[in-house]
Each structure stands twice: as C-alpha cells, then as structure tokens.
C-alpha cells in the first residue's frame, strides 16, 4: 500500500476498540455493527465507523443484509491475518494510467475478435465485461476517484486477471488455446505500445496471461 493508505490504516488500527473488534470478527462470520456493539458493549456508531473504515482499506468484505423491515451492511474478515505492506517508491500509484492500459487491452481484444471474423465471440466477451464481480468494480472505481493507492492497483490487477481468464476461456473454446493466447497476447502487446515503462514497472501485462 502507499503512504496515505498506510497512515489511514495505522490510525484506524491504533484505536481503543480495534483489536477487540478484530478478534470478534476473527471467526469469519458475517456481522453487522449492532452485533459488534452488543458483543463488546461499545457504541454502535463506533463499531460502524471502524467496520466501514476497515472495509475502505480492503481488510473487510461487505455485503447488504436485507430483512423485512430494513437493510443493514454486514462485514467479515477476508482472512485470519492482517498485513500492512508499505510501498515506499516515489510518487503516487498511477492507477488511472494503469486502468487506461487495461481498457486499451480490452478494446483491442474486442476489435481483434471482430476483425478475425468468428461470429458471436465479441458479444460473449462484452457480456463478461458487464458481469458483477463481487463489488470489485465498484470498489475499484471508488479507489480511483479517491486518488488510488497500492491497494487500488491490486484490485485493478485482480479485476483484469479475472476478465482476461474469462476471455481466454471463451476464445479457446471457439478457436483453440494457441490461437486464443496469440490473440490475447497480441492485444496486450499493442496496448503496451507507448507506455512500456508503466506496464513493465507495475507488471501489468503478466496477469493477462500474455
């Protein structure tokens, strides 16, 4: 993570109730703020702020729990361990530029499949882009608006790794794995042109299987 995210994480984790809350969540079960509040005898607002903050930093998963009368956000730990990984490289993480690379990659794949002439593949690929990936896209674009950060770069890579794997599966089924790899690899290479240092430094291409 970058320095900004690291500072936010340290501030949040150094709070009076942070460790008891994390231990409570350590079971891995989904909890809402009022569960935490009741279990630890703390104010619901305190629990709610901590949970939202931890989710924003990427340490907790979040989903909506609906009941007949109201909806509430519930959270759970993404694992039994929390790691703070500080990136001390110079400058802010160029998340938007990295996103531009991946978007160019996707549009080049679509263009190539259209030009290749295999019927219906581009439509199938486009459908996969619209798929909801457990809120990953939503989180990612929120991070980009917030100014990015190393965590955002990880989300970005995870999102496009997922998309690229699905692209490979769809194209392989129609035209064979070697042709599909060649097509995707060609698209990754074309998108890299003009931004080689960014792509290589942040290892953006390797997750595309290219």
């Amino acid at each position: 993570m970058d320095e900004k995210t690291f500072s936010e994480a340290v501030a949040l984790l150094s709070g009076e109730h942070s460790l008891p809350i994390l231990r409570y969540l350590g079971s891995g079960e989904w909890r809402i703020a009022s569960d935490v509040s009741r279990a630890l005898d703390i104010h619901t607002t305190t629990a709610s702020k901590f949970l939202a903050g931890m989710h924003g930093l990427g340490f907790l998963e979040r989903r909506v729990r609906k009941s007949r009368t109201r909806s509430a956000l519930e959270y759970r730990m993404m694992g039994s361990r929390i790691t703070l990984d500080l990136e001390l490289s110079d400058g802010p993480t160029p998340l938007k530029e990295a996103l531009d690379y991946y978007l160019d990659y996707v549009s080049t794949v679509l263009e190539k499949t259209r030009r290749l002439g295999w019927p219906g593949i581009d439509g199938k690929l486009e459908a996969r882009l619209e798929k909801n990936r457990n809120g990953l896209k939503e989180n990612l674009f929120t991070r980009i608006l917030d100014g990015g950060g190393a965590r955002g770069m990880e989300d970005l890579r995870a999102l496009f790794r997922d998309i690229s794997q699905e692209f490979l599966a769809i194209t392989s089924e129609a035209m064979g794995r070697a042709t599909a790899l060649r097509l995707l690899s060609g698209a990754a290479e074309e998108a890299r042109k003009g931004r080689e240092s960014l792509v290589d430094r942040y290892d953006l291409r390797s997750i595309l299987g290219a």
Partner: protein
Amino acid sequence: MSDRLPTGIEGFDLLVQGGFPARSVSLVAGPAGGGKSLFALHFCHAGARRYNEPSMYVVLEEAKESLQRVMQMFGMDFGDLEKADRFLLIDLGELRVSGSQGSPIGFRELQDFLASSLKTAHVRRLVIDSLSAIGLHYGSAAEYRERLFAFCRFLRGMDVTTLLIAESPDPHALTQFGVEQFLADSVVHLGLEEVKGELRRTLTVRKMRFTKHDTGKHPMHITSVGIEVAADEKVV
C-alpha cells in the same frame, strides 16, 4: 454429404465427374492474379448457398477487405450466409500482425485453431489461403514438408473437404517449395499465359485421386459472374 462437392463452376465440375471428392485435400496453384481466391470463393459460395454445407475461408495473407470486395464484384452475396453461420471468413492474418515479433502462423497453430473451430461451426468446406504465407514460418523445405504432411493427415481425419491455395513463384515451378503437389489428393493449376501480347487464362486438373478426370488444359474466363471454364475446348 455426397461423395462429390461441386464448385459451382459448371465447366470445372464436368472435368472431374461432379466436383472434388469428399474429405479430400486439394491444391489450387497458380501465379498472382490467376484467379485462385475467386475459384475458392466459388467453392465456398456453392457449398453454403446451394448445398447447405457450412464453409470456412481462412485468410492468412490477403486482406479480408480485398476478398470482400471480390465477393461483391462478382455478385457473391455472403451476407445472409454469414448471419446464418453457413459462411465464415476468418482473418488469421490478424494474428500474424500481432504475434510475438509479428511471426507468421505455422501449421501447428493452424491445426489447433481448426481442431476447435471446424467442429464448433460444423464446417464441411474449408479453404486455406495461402500455403505460401505459412511457408514463411519454416526455415527449411524439409521442415515445411514434414509439417505439411502432418497437417494434410489431420485434415483427412476431419469431416471436411479442403482447398489449399498456393502461389506459383514462376512459370516453371508449380509451388514455392515443390512438395505441396505430392501431398495433396488433387492439384488444379490456374495458368496465366501471355499470347500475342494478351494474357490468356487456363485451367488444368493435373492430378485427382479417387476419380477419373480430364487432363487437358482448358480456357478459363473471368466474367461478371465469376469464373467460367470451357470444358469442351482445349488450349493448344
């Protein structure tokens, strides 16, 4: 599927007892401008339009747009056939441009592509345009021959009838590597000869396994509706 696949070029089909033998691998060779691609388009168009046999034309070198222009020029309307998945014009040259260091497609990659796509699209007629483009992938004629041999064997194992297009590099050589004609079941040569300052087109069936065929050199014309072969005339 019948044991003969007519090309839709009436004069040619008369020379070979109705068309190419089913599941055979045939070579269509000739100089640049000899009408090879147009001949192969007739084969695809007749299959898809008249016999409901899905056809695939794989372009490796020529621009897809230029082939589409040829189709329009000769009134071969593939639009509805493409929509119905009865004709597929696949531009693998697109991969050649973008492959690692822009390397050409080889037989193994092509085979991998066809192994999936022929079944998925239920293809019965296949055109590979051209072998000359694939030849660029190989360092020696021996390696090319070995791979082409394996590729032809693969094609014969599929339920598909194939035309391989090859460019004749000069008037004395049928093909670039001089081996293609030995591995194919049939060889059709489209000639372009200069006679008294004018180019004359000819068609000769030099070889066709599994059938009796005419061995004469026949006049061939390209008209507004495509290729016409004068089966009852011979060039002397």
